[in-house]
């Protein structure tokens, strides 16, 4: 499951001189190459909301005509409803659209998370690309040298057994079957 750097260099700007892990991108081990998000200078949530989520424009207009002091972000574990009541079969019953698998994704240090439709990704490549548009981060691949800095992150996921695992070790389909949520954690903490 290798990801070559060519696929990513068109999607985002990698500054090879300042990015020490660019060299690791050409290695054939595991999956992810370092990706420099275009939004690293400024984290504009409302822009990302517009770009990242597929919402109909009418709903979006409703959002912004409602006079609220905050933009409509979904906090972690909210609304306070047991997950059993939001279980898969209920979502199936209501799903008038094509099948989707929305999971939550958080970046360490940022309390507000995002949601990501894994079924809309083709594989690990497109997953990383999508994430790059959502968060200001550089995601290292697990084979790279540990960089002891808070600038770099790795992508992890919580599996069905409640354990936190590195993304990319298992085939994509198996990953889809097991993933409950994603977390971007600091490279020097793992």
């Amino acid at each position, binding site marked *: 499951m290798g990801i070559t750097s060519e696929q990513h260099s068109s999607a985002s700007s990698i500054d090879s001189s300042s990015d020490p892990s660019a060299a690791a991108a050409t290695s054939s081990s595991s999956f992810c190459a370092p990706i420099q998000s275009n939004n690293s200078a400024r984290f504009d949530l409302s822009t990302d909301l517009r770009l990242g989520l597929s919402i*109909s424009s009418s709903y979006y207009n409703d959002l912004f005509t409602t006079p609220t002091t905050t933009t409509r972000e979904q*906090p972690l*574990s*909210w609304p306070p*409803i047991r997950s*059993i009541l939001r279980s898969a*079969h209920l*979502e199936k019953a209501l799903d008038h659209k094509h099948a989707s698998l929305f999971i939550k994704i958080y970046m*360490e240090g940022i309390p507000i998370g995002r949601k990501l439709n894994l079924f809309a990704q083709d594989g690990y490549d497109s997953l990383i690309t999508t994430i790059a548009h959502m968060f200001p981060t550089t995601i290292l691949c697990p084979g790279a040298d540990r960089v002891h800095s808070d600038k770099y992150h790795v992508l992890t996921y919580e599996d069905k057994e409640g354990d936190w695992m590195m993304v990319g070790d298992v085939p994509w389909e198996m990953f889809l079957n097991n993933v409950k949520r994603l977390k971007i954690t600091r490279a020097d903490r793992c």
Partner: protein
Amino acid sequence: MDFSLPTEPMNHKRKNPDPSPDSDESTTQLSSPFPDEVLERVLSLLNSRKDRNSVSLVCKDWYDAERWSRTHVFIGNCYSVSPEILTRRFPNIRSVTLKGKPRFSDFDLVPPKWGAYVHSWLLVFATKYHFLEELRLKRMTVSDENLKLLALSFPNFKALSLLSCDGFSTDGLASITTHCKNLTELDIQENDIDDKSGKWLSCFPENFMSLEVLNFANLNSDVNFEALERLVSRCKSLKVLKVNENMTLEQLHRLLVLAPHLRELGTGSLLQELTPRQHSELKSAFNNCKNLNMLSGFYEVTSIFLPVLYPACTSLTFLNLSYAALRSDELSNLLVHCPLLQRLWVLDSVEDEGLEAVGSNCPLLEELRVFPASDPFEDEILHGVTEAGFLAVSYGCKKLHYVLYFCRQMTNAAVATIVQNCPDFTHFRLCIMNPRQPDYQTNEPMDEAFGAVVKTCTKLRRLAVSGLLTDLTFEYIGKYANNLETLSVAFAGSSDRGMECVLKGCPKLRKLEIRDCPFGNAALLSSFRKYESMRSLWMSGCKVTMDGCRLLAQEMPRLNVEVIRECGNDGFQADKLYVYRSVAGPRKDAPSFVLTL
């Protein structure tokens, strides 16, 4: 105090059976003019926890009589007492209810492997409570080994209820069904378990007949239907049967024919096409269920199926539709047949119109819960409910006293009218799903809404607040909510003052759970003695720091002050704080991420 356990514990002789003048309390005149056994006999008729606690405080004789006669014990926080202390005080317990994790663990705010293990309790019970009959656990961690120990240690074991527990698999259930010869109740609800297979059901012996309650609605593996059929036909006292969603209508029909005396039924999936013959057969089966007062299940129900239920609805008092995404017309048509309904749980797919039908058809309604059918942050198709629905119910259902309402908008005026219509609220849990959302008509905070609730509803025991709220809400709560026992707060308040007002007021407060509010150390430490009169305090995403928590721990040695440390935490903020009173001292089984201060 030494005592031995004979075979019949209730005839047990105590150390001093005869009341002699020496045993009288010299300081009081409340010496028993009759033998202790009589007092015990009288007290054994007392069931209320509160009464028993009051009795135990009268004098030493009454304390002793109460502890010998108590057969049921309720422990709201498993870490507030140890099994050793419990068994020492109450030697004759037959029934135990234990609650473990803080309630916010239901919403994934407590990391896994936090604790609340039933293991240490079972080990002690196995030696001290040989005659244990009932065990009810909520938010505890239970393993398959624990269930096996349970099944093998208590020959008279009758009732097992597991709600929101985790850590076990269906193998553990198999131990119970195999070994508990006197089982009357097996209630497995909303647990996070490893559902390996439905074989546990087939482990009931062929001569086993005592089952009265069977709830496996939230288990997904298929059970052997023939085994279930035989079980139901053998157990003539079966009152409650809640099957999982894999049961077909055909199978449901066969079960109903075998058990028309059911009081509570949980259906399976109701999606199949019915031939006219099947339709009338099922309708007739439901018609024969004269004792049915609760219906639940309704996974994936279609309109065509609902009329089949109508004959069974005449005596219904509780209808749980929280898995069925019904439309307003479907609900309306159903409710016409449920005049005696007292409790209704629905999804907000029924919208305000559906709730209008509730108001029109259910004059005896006491409890309403409206859950969101889908994630409001994602789904643009469903509209949910608004203040209009709640208002409609309040006009039609004057006996309403329990509401849990997830909605997308609310106004102060609507809530004020609602509580005027229904002043007897005991439980008012309003969740406006967008955090910090103001009154959508006036754009003001929702302070006056909750002010109206606490001023008007003098019997209020439980309150959950939401929407844009300033400290004024909490001033009202502290000042007026004199019977309030549980308060849940999220994304609310302007400053420490809010929490301070609550702690200084609310004389009966027992549980306070707060998330993502601007309350810090000043608030936490403002009335720290209060926490000893409460079961617990939870604060997450607030502004308390480790130093503040340490100060609290120092001042109040009889409280357990625990901080859950998350990955990436800088060690200054106390992101998740859990404070509770305990006679058992600090936890001995805390994982590395729980710091006891």
